[in-house]
């Protein structure tokens, strides 16, 4: 999507003097791509908000359903959530944000080898998280909590599944960045491209921060 209209007029103000993030002058001083990504992330807030609210509603509703009156979902312990396991995978995703910013920071220093190392680390951490999610899903399924079992399970799998798809898309973006860097097409002056991918990646992480607290920890 890295596409800029090159024919926009330079304003009278002259050269951009704001840390040089944009290749062409814009009215806001932010490059088109970065502004677009932030707008997209603003929009995503409403998407995940809707899914989280659906989950909260149906977790609440499940208790008014015969047989579940006194169930505290996450206190079902091994039956439903494996908190220690999820804590580890949450921690993995959290740390992938650190490696992501380190990759970007290395690129701004023209340190391409470290950029690639950190990029690959980030992608691997993301992949670890996804494997953890796959393991969690299969474990639930084996314990009898399938997608269609009840309203709670549908809401849970949809919410975490949407998040998982977002992480997977992020991994693909990271790997393309890695390939670009390996082929020498990711110079320090394109650091913003990596920053934009990073924004997406951090957003996915931030969503997991909310999901981890609201879905897993709050009783």
């Amino acid at each position, binding site marked *: 999507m890295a596409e800029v209209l090159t024919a926009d007029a330079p304003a009278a103000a002259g050269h951009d003097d704001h840390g040089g993030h944009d290749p062409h002058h814009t009215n806001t001083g932010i490059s088109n791509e970065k502004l677009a990504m932030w707008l997209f992330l603003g929009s995503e*807030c*409403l998407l995940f*908000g809707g899914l989280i609210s659906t989950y909260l509603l149906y977790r609440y509703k499940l208790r008014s359903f015969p047989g579940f009156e006194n169930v505290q979902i996450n206190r079902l312990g091994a039956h439903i959530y494996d908190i220690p396991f999820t804590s580890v995978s949450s921690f993995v995703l959290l740390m992938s944000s650190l490696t992501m910013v380190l990759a970007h920071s290395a690129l701004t220093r023209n340190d391409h080898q470290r950029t690639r190392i950190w990029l690959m680390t980030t992608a691997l951490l993301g992949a670890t998280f996804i494997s953890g999610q796959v393991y969690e899903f299969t474990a639930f399924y084996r314990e009898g909590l399938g997608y269609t079992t009840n309203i709670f399970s549908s809401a849970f799998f949809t919410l975490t599944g949407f998040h998982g798809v977002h992480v997977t898309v992020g991994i693909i973006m990271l790997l393309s960045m890695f390939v670009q860097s390996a082929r020498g097409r990711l110079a320090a002056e394109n650091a913003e491209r990596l920053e934009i991918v990073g924004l997406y990646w951090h957003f996915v992480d931030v969503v997991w921060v909310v999901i981890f607290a609201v879905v897993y920890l709050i009783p």
Partner: protein
Amino acid sequence: MSIPDVGTPASAEHSAAAGHRTVEHHGPTDKQYVIVALVLGLITCVEVSTYFHSVINWGRLLMPALLIMGGIKFYLIAAYFMHLKYDRRILRRVFTTGIILAIGVYMIMLTAFKVFKPHAIPH
């Protein structure tokens, strides 16, 4: 614009001089990033510890504490890792508009469903 050839130190210098945007870095330093990550990890440990009753008995404070800790983590990632603290104001506005709208409409919706009514929580 000349082709920035970063293959040799000499041309790297040249590209740094020509491309004024090459190396400037306004965000936090790597050290700050690591510190933020450590804080994030620490908060996560406290969050997880609430699951094990034996560590601290949080009582009624559990839910607000978890929400506040989640909020702090959210803020730290958005402000430092996503550079919102260092970036243009309009980006902050766009993102906070999304968050506030999301929290606003969905909280009203859940309130209309009476999810937050105290008697709704079974003991």
